[in-house]
């Protein structure tokens, strides 16, 4: 099976927060889709970006590298990065790579919004 494409959808989530819904695979080939989505998500001044991984099919190490560079960009802008909808397997991968120390991980959007509002 070859990897498919990455689809990134941007939508407002809450005051000061935008969500990027990921569908398909996240690999190094996803760079333009993810970075352009981040640009759109930040256009209205959002200070929290939430990645919705419920539609994630596959992520390789190139995808993890992409999350690192996205996180650095977000931190440079004084924003926060959160993730929702990760399977147990991908939660383990974020723990393995210690990305979970910098990305807020929540079960679902309601929990992320509650953390933003707190």
């Amino acid at each position, binding site marked *: *099976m*070859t*990897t498919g*494409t*990455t*689809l*990134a*959808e*941007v*939508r407002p989530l809450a005051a000061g927060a935008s969500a990027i819904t990921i569908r398909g695979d996240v*690999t*190094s*080939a*996803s*760079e*333009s*889709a*993810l*970075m*352009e*989505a981040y640009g*759109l998500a930040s256009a209205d001044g959002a200070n929290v970006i939430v990645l919705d991984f419920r539609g994630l099919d*596959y*992520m*390789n*190490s*190139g995808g*993890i*590298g992409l999350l*690192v*560079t996205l*996180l*650095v960009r977000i931190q*440079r802008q004084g924003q926060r990065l959160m993730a929702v909808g990760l399977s147990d*397997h*991908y939660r*383990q*991968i974020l*723990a*393995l*790579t*210690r*990305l979970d*120390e*910098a990305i807020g991980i929540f079960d679902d959007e309601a929990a992320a919004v509650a953390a933003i509002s707190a």
Partner: protein
Amino acid sequence: MNQLHSTPTEGTGPDPTVSSAGAAPAGQRVRGSSEANWSQPVDRLTLGRVPAEAINLNVTGKRLSGPLQGFGQLWQKTYRVRLDGATVSPQEVVAVWKREFGSFWPKGARFYAPFAEIAPGEVGLINQDLGGRQVLSTGVMVIYADDVSFTFMTPEGHVFASMITFSADVEGGATVAQVQALLRASDPFYEVMLMAGGHNRENIHWQGTLVNLAARFGVEGAPTVSQVCIDRNRQWRHVSNIRHNAAIRSGLWSIAHPMRMFRRPKD
């Protein structure tokens, strides 16, 4: 709602700033299950049996340390070599690379793999000559491997807080082997070392590795290098990483064990 698509295609080069639809050295893949390709999380590293001549320091008991945990500027370095004329697939290149990984390293560096082949979860030991019979002892863990790539992550105390991916793909009708590192110097000591020639030494190491890999397939390789500074800021909150510094700890060990240093085989 805005939708953005990205479809992997044949790679056009290592520049990380080009559109994702054009640069896919690790994008277009035949893959196994994600569970099989990734290592399980580990809290502390453990190392299997290593040869008696190896200096085994700074690996066992250490945590993994990636670019987020490092101190120095964040760099993305990409080294590529075209295997023009070799009728070998990316899968075949990576299979050989996994089996014979240490044999492609240039003189002065030794990779001790207490396992038969690169596989997720395995931990390898590195002994790097620093001159004057000083040896830096550190290691890496394999965090990911599929049939066209594998990725190492470094432990605390390594020169780099990094992830480094070895892969192969097809570009312009030829198989291309690639090393791509996302790295920060682990601490201020290493950051100064890198600014004083360490980056160049690192580049020479990986270019030499790719030349040796290309030679394995009968090709006289001419590697290319691309390096981009992703983040010029230094992470001062991680300045205390220096307590794990493998170079300092290895140096202190060699002072305490002078005869052991003279017993080591020379390259």
